[in-house]
């Protein structure tokens, strides 16, 4: 084994690569570039938000005014909006997730195939409905319909602060917006979860069944662990949508100051609808306030996602992959 193997002339048969060697470089470069574009866009969005909201954040330094227009300090102005946004989104997620996961399971593990396909399609259709239409529906159909339920909730469960306030006659309360949001994010969570659930290895499902697991136990032992990261992903996607949704909330909610009661109209507001409602007439300081509120939403999303990542990564060793 002492022959000289590295003669340049002989080497050519391995180095003379077949066409397309450049393709790999170009393509991986493109893929990388796409990632860079996204980071740049996001950086621009962040810069845009920060620069535009500086006057509202530190009026003494970055503007001619002493304080912001809508309140004494920016924080005083924004915390009720942040609270409203978070409450509405969390309720929406709490309402939508179980139902969405349920439907996804229904499609992937319960319904016969002849039912599952059309149901999947129909649920996807929900995603097709523009948010204006959801808003209009929420405003005209839903808000009226929930009034008796709110009254009932207030009467019997009024001791819970969430149902503490008077129910009013129009149903244009935070809970109604949250329901509309829940309906809107339902298909997002469902369709992602469904695709993941279907991918659960048969091998593991059968292992569970062969141990004498019922269908539900099998789902708990194999489908959920396998899909955990995917479920959280889809919830994040839905939450993002709920946090950022403008039109539906704007049309449905009668906004007002913060209150724990989510069934009282004329209470609570969300950041996106606050922006949408007031941006057209805003200029100068008011505009900065609104964009600063947008910045806060951005930060909320950041924090929420950090928490989600942390949850996903905590059990990486035992992840369903491989």
């Amino acid at each position, binding site marked *: 084994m002492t022959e000289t193997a590295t003669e340049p002339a002989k080497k050519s048969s391995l180095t003379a690569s*077949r066409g*397309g060697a450049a*393709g*790999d470089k170009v*393509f*991986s470069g*493109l*893929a990388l570039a*796409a*990632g860079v574009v*996204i980071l740049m866009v*996001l950086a*621009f*969005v962040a810069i*845009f*938000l920060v620069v535009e909201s500086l006057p509202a954040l530190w009026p003494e330094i970055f503007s001619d005014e002493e304080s912001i227009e809508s309140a004494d300090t920016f924080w005083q102005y924004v915390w009720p909006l942040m609270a409203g946004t978070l409450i509405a989104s969390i309720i929406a997620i709490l309402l939508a997730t179980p*139902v*969405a*996961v349920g*439907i996804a399971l229904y499609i992937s593990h*319960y319904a016969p195939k002849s039912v599952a396909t059309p149901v999947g*399609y*129909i*649920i*996807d*259709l929900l995603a*097709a409905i*523009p*948010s*204006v*239409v*959801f808003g209009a*529906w929420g405003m*005209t*159909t839903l808000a009226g319909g929930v009034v008796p339920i709110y009254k009932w909730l207030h009467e019997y469960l009024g001791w819970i602060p969430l149902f503490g306030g008077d129910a009013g006659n129009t149903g244009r309360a935070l809970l109604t917006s949250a*329901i509309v949001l829940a309906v809107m994010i339902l298909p*997002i969570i469902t*369709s*992602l979860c469904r*695709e*993941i659930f279907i991918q659960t290895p*048969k091998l593991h499902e059968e292992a569970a069944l062969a141990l004498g697991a*019922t269908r*539900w*136990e099998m*789902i708990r032992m194999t489908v959920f662990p396998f899909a955990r990261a995917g479920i959280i*992903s889809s919830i994040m*996607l839905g*939450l*993002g*949508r709920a946090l*950022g*949704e*403008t039109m539906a909330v704007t049309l449905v909610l009668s906004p007002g100051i913060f209150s724990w009661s989510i069934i009282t109209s004329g209470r609570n507001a969300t950041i*996106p609808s606050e922006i949408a409602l007031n*941006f057209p007439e805003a200029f100068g300081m008011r505009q900065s306030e609104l964009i600063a509120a*947008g910045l806060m*939403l951005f930060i909320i*999303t950041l924090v929420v*996602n950090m928490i989600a990542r942390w949850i996903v990564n905590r059990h990486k060793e035992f992840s369903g992959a491989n």
Partner: protein
Amino acid sequence: MPRWTWIAVAVGALVLAAGLTSLLGGGSFSWTGWLIFAAVLYIVGMYVTTYVIENKRRATDGIWRNLVWSAFILALIPLISVIWTVFANGLPTLLANPQLLWTDMDGVTGADDISTQNEGASLQGGFLHGLAGTLMITLMATIISVPIGLLTSIYLVEYSRGGWFSRSIVFFVDVMTGIPSIVAGLFAFALVELFITTFIGESPRHVQMIKMGLTAAIALSVLMIPVVVRSTEEMLRVVPNELREASYALGVRKWRTIFKVVLPTAMSGIASGITLAIARVTGETAPILVTAGYAAATNWNPFGEWMTALPVFIYRQLMNPTAPAAGMPSADRAWAAALVLIVIVMLLNLAARIIAKAFAPKNSGR
């Protein structure tokens, strides 16, 4: 457990619920309340019955099955309600006035609507301009964001080795999902403004170029990209590695492997993710309002002049009727437009499924 158990429980639940509803309702009987009570009672009743007759595990299995079914039925309620609202409001108008599809609002004034509402004149105008706007803007947004989104998720799944760079992309893509749509619009406006004022000119004439279909498409892309990346990434991750290895072992280059093996295998999931993303942005109102202006005439050119998208048209027609004193004609147009918008996305969805089917792994047997 006998087969008829569930029927017995169901009947029991219905009867009991009827009693409970009339008791709590204080005289007035609520049908919704009755059904809700009955459903809850049925689920609980089945649980208890199974628990007693069989065992806890079967009861648990049963309660979850019932809950999954209820989730399904529960989701159908708003779905049917929304679709019914749109069809009931939009279909009659559209059938009576098919010209809505091929005329725009150019030349239509409040006086026309007033005579429509008060004197029964035929409905004027239409939403061809909105249709054109939606199609062009969505198409452009898709052209911008699908390649970026796909390539990014390919980078994440196929090329990155989990370094800080890919982790930060994943993280910030998540963050992007939460950008309020109006902020995306403002951002796109500012971006195009920056571009135009630095490279083209600052005079009013140039500044007036900012609002166009392209600007709206950029705004929508900001909203679309994260959805595309997120869903595509999940789908690529579940493509079995052995297929990639099979391809590499044949001496196929990585990029070709990705194109010819990985993407087709994941196509069904990717297609539904992209459809979801498109569906999301076709329904956007706020960002288009601040980026594309508001036109009454049809404009097919996304690189110049203002455009109106269907959701904007719907929103404005509902909120600011052409004739303030006669809102019906505007509302009719709005609902008809909403119907058309839904049908468009429905067709899109269908197309995506057909594409997905064509690519889907041809499985047979186990």
